[in-house]
Each structure stands twice: as C-alpha cells, then as structure tokens.
C-alpha cells in the first residue's frame, strides 16, 4: 500500500520529470502543473487502493498521464481564446511539434515517457497497461515518423 511519505518522496525527487511529461501532453506549463498537482492529490486520496504487488511509481505515473490527458481534452474543447501566439519558433521545431501532435496517442505517450521521463520499456508498459513489445514497436514507429519529418 502507498503511504503518504512514499508518495511525497516520489513527488519531491521526480517532480520535474512528472511536470515535463505533463507539459508535453498538455502543451501549457500552467495546465500541466495543475494536472500534476491533481494527480498526486488523487494518488493520496486513493493510496489505500494500491495493491501490495503494484509498483508505486508506475501507479502514480498512470495517474499523472490520465490527469494530463484529461487536461488536454478539456483544453481542446474550450473555444480558442487569446492565448499568446509564439511567432519566433524555428521552422524545423514547428514542424516537429506538428509531427509529434499527429502521432497516434499510444506512440506519442510512449515517446514522452521514454524521452522526457526516462522510463524503461517495462515501466512504460506498466504505466500504459500494454505489453513490452508494444512499447518497443510504438517507439520505433514514432522515431521513424519523426525522422522522416525531420529529413523532409
């Protein structure tokens, strides 16, 4: 079972990794920070439901991913307002952003957890609830797509 101290320890040690992945998913640093806070609050509230065999980090990562995806969906539903427009992004970075956004969800989330959180294939598989082979295939496909975009 997860206790408060263990969850707090995870938060303090890995906050930036959680936040970075959340930013990648949500797009907005503020909304991403909110998602991380909400995910950890939920982890605290539901800590008694964590089974003894479950790994705490993977369980919390799952909550953070779910919270970030929820945030992103909420943001997508909102009418575009007067968000600041960034005009000074290099072309290749802008293209990469579009290419990443166009990836299938599973590939995109696998890529974020691998690249921004530095999780192992097994950890990613546990977070996303898929087989290890699926993680490897998704990562390979994502890299292939992005490389093709970068070369084009």
């Amino acid at each position, binding site marked *: 079972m997860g206790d408060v101290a263990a969850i707090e320890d995870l938060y303090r040690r890995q906050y*930036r990794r959680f936040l970075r992945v959340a*930013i990648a998913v949500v797009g907005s640093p503020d909304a991403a920070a909110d998602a991380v806070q909400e995910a950890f609050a*939920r982890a*605290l509230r539901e800590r008694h439901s964590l089974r003894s065999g479950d790994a705490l980090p993977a369980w919390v990562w799952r909550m953070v991913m779910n919270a970030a995806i929820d945030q992103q969906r909420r943001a997508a539903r909102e009418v575009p307002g007067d968000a600041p427009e960034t005009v*000074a992004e290099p072309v*290749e970075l802008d293209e*990469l952003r579009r290419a990443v956004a166009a990836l299938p969800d599973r590939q995109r989330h696998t890529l974020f957890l691998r*690249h921004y959180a530095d999780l192992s294939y097994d950890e990613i598989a546990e977070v996303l609830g898929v087989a290890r082979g699926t993680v490897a295939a998704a990562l390979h496909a994502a890299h292939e797509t992005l490389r093709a975009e*970068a070369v084009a």
Partner: protein
Amino acid sequence: MSVEAMLDRLVPEPEAFGDWDDVLQRAGIKRRRKVVVSAAVAAVILAILFATPAFGVLVDLIGRTTVPFTGKAAPTRVQRNFFDMSISAPRGMGPHAIASQTRRVGTVAGRALYVAPTREGGFCWEAERSGGGCITKREQRLLVGASLMQRRGGPLLLREVSGEVLAPAARSVAIEYADGTTKQLSFLWVTKPIDAGFFAFMVPAAHQTKAQPRAVTIRDAHGKLLAREPLLYGRPRIPPHHVPVKPPRSYRPRPLPAPSAPLQHGSANGVSVVVGANGIAEFDTSDPLLQKASWACFKFMRYHQVDPFGIGFEAQARHGNRVRLGSLRGPFDGCDIQRGYGHTWPDPHGYHSAAEIAFTARARRFFADRAAARELALYLRWSKHHPNAPTAGIAIAHNGADTVYSVRSTTGKRFSVTKRGGRIVRENVRPYAGPL
C-alpha cells in the same frame, strides 16, 4: 539535428519546483502537527524550573519560541518577492527560494514574519514593512542587520536591530549596550527545513543617542556564549599602520555570448532586437538617443500573469549591444526601450515607451493597456500639483463620496482609480504604471 535533440528543445526541462502543501490541501489531508505540550505539563515544568537551580535556564526558554514551519501560506506579494529574487539575480547567484512554500510563521517585533526554504537548503525571510534576506550557506552562527538614521547635522542613530540565528543550540539573544547593560530579546526559532531563528528589536529612544547598542550575542541553554556580532556604525577606524595600496586592476567585463537558438526577432521605431533562448538580447539601433536608453525584455510567468517580469539594463551597464536578461530564459513575450515617458517619443502623449517590440499577441495587448494605465497615472500625478491638468481622454464620474477617474485601453480594458476624501481607495493601474 537529431530527433532526440529536437524533442529536448520542444519541451525543455522545466525549472519549476513543486508545492507539496498544495497537493495535501487538494487531497484534503492536514499536515500532522507536532505534539503540543499540554498546559498542565508546561506548568509542572515551570514549577520545577522555579524550584531548582535550573531557574537560570528559564530566561533562555522564554527568549526562544519554537514554531513549526507549517503556518499560513504567505500572500502572493511576498511569494512573488522571493520568486523574483532568483530570476532577477545574475545567473547562478539567485537564492532559489521555493516561493510557493512561503509561510507566515509568526511575528517578530509585532511584524508578520514570512519564510521560505531554498532549493539548496537555505532560506529566505521577510518581516512585514521591514528587512529580510536570504541565507544560502550556513557558515555563521549569527547574522545581524541594523537600520540607521541620521538627521541633518545630527548623530547616526540606530533605530532597529534584526537578524538571523543559525546555531540550533541558541536559547537566548541579547543586545549589549555601551553602558555595560544588556537587554534580552525574544526570538522565533522556525523548525526544519528552515532551522533558524529570527529577531527584530526597535531600539528605545533613550538608547539611540546615549549608551547605544554595541553588540548582539547568542547563548546556549547553559549561558555559554555561541556568537557575538559587534554593531559598527559611525566612521570606520583607519588602522594606524601603513597599508600599501595596490594599484586597482583594470576590469574588463567578459563579452556576452551571442543569442542562442531558437531566436526571436522583432523591430519597432528604428530598433531591432534578437533574443536567444539563453537569455541574451541583442539590440540594434542607430538612434543615439535610444542607444543611451534602458533596454529590457520581459515575459509572462508565474506571479507575473498581469504584469510581465521584465529585466534590462541602463546604457552604462550594458555590454555593447547585448544584455543578459538575469536568469530569465526564452521564449520572451516582448522587449522595449524606455527613457521614462514624457514628450520626446514618437507617441504625442508619451504613454508608450520609445520602442515597444511584441513577440506575442499578449505583449501587444500589454503595451496598449500599459499606455492607457500610464495616461491615467500621469493625469493623477499631475492633478496633485496642477488643479487644471488636462483631462482629455480621462472620464471623471462622481458617485456619492467617491470620484472615479477612468480610461479605456484600445483592447477594451478599463482602468480606474477611485478617490474618497482625496485618498485613493481603489485602483488597478499600479501593475502597469507604478505607484501613484
């Protein structure tokens, strides 16, 4: 560039830090308090102390009050002060206070005391309407600050003494006066992660001119002196022996690096600017007036959602055409060149800066709003001294005892100042135009 490198640039590692107290609050969990000694137990301890030779310790115990670092969250204004210390400091020199964890832990000399831990194990503190500071290294046991005042031709008066106690064993703080008497001070000891004590003391008028404070001391529970910090004020003594004076070394500031990619470009009013992700801005203007002006860039960020945090330099502090924007990193929202605002700008009323360069739509709206707020602020400042100050563009409405002055920005945002009996009771222009 590899896909991995580009992914890094797509989402750089954030420089943020978490707020665990906020998580606890969202989860509805109250932080566990330290065990509180009941009044009855405390009474027994006091009785024993009075009845034994340990009575001497009692004074020490009364002098130090230990408070947990779990007080009320500090107002945003204080959090912002701590946050700004790190971003306005030269790179690598900021205290890195965890602003979101700033707490009101108690009072010293009747003033609210706010403290925040820093990422490197130190802390920042601020006493309301008084001093404050940050400790990054716990090398000393006692740090003392003094507030001095001198009336024309008069002696230098010591008005207030405040400081930090960094020795965990300290149980008492005392001021030594020049006449040999001492005054015990009470101080607050804040538990981990702060692990430090704070005191402030208003020097009585009788001790401001005669028998002035000479030193602050801290002692442990046994009365052993832990540290003594002399209070030096007045003219410094010059050592009698001859000290050979070394010729000053010529100082050549190292040239700043070029702005690094991804770059942001912009131009306005004969000024162009390139700002890099590394926080270096390179301005280019042939206008001699603007070359002598203050150059700055800004960005909207936490605690600065309304008025962006800007940082820049006067002409004499710059390195050629480049400025390092403190610890701020790109992307930025905009840059501007200011020489105050008056009648010398392209703008006939002088409410815009000399050059306003917006990288984002939000910055463009900010410039428009700031001009409107400045217009209103300028009118109110003028009208203090000039009863017939021109009111063009200013709407004035009377509502009972209130007089409301307002102006509308081209973005539609309305700025207003409400005066009652000659005093400002409500306004929203300060973040844009400074104090009225």
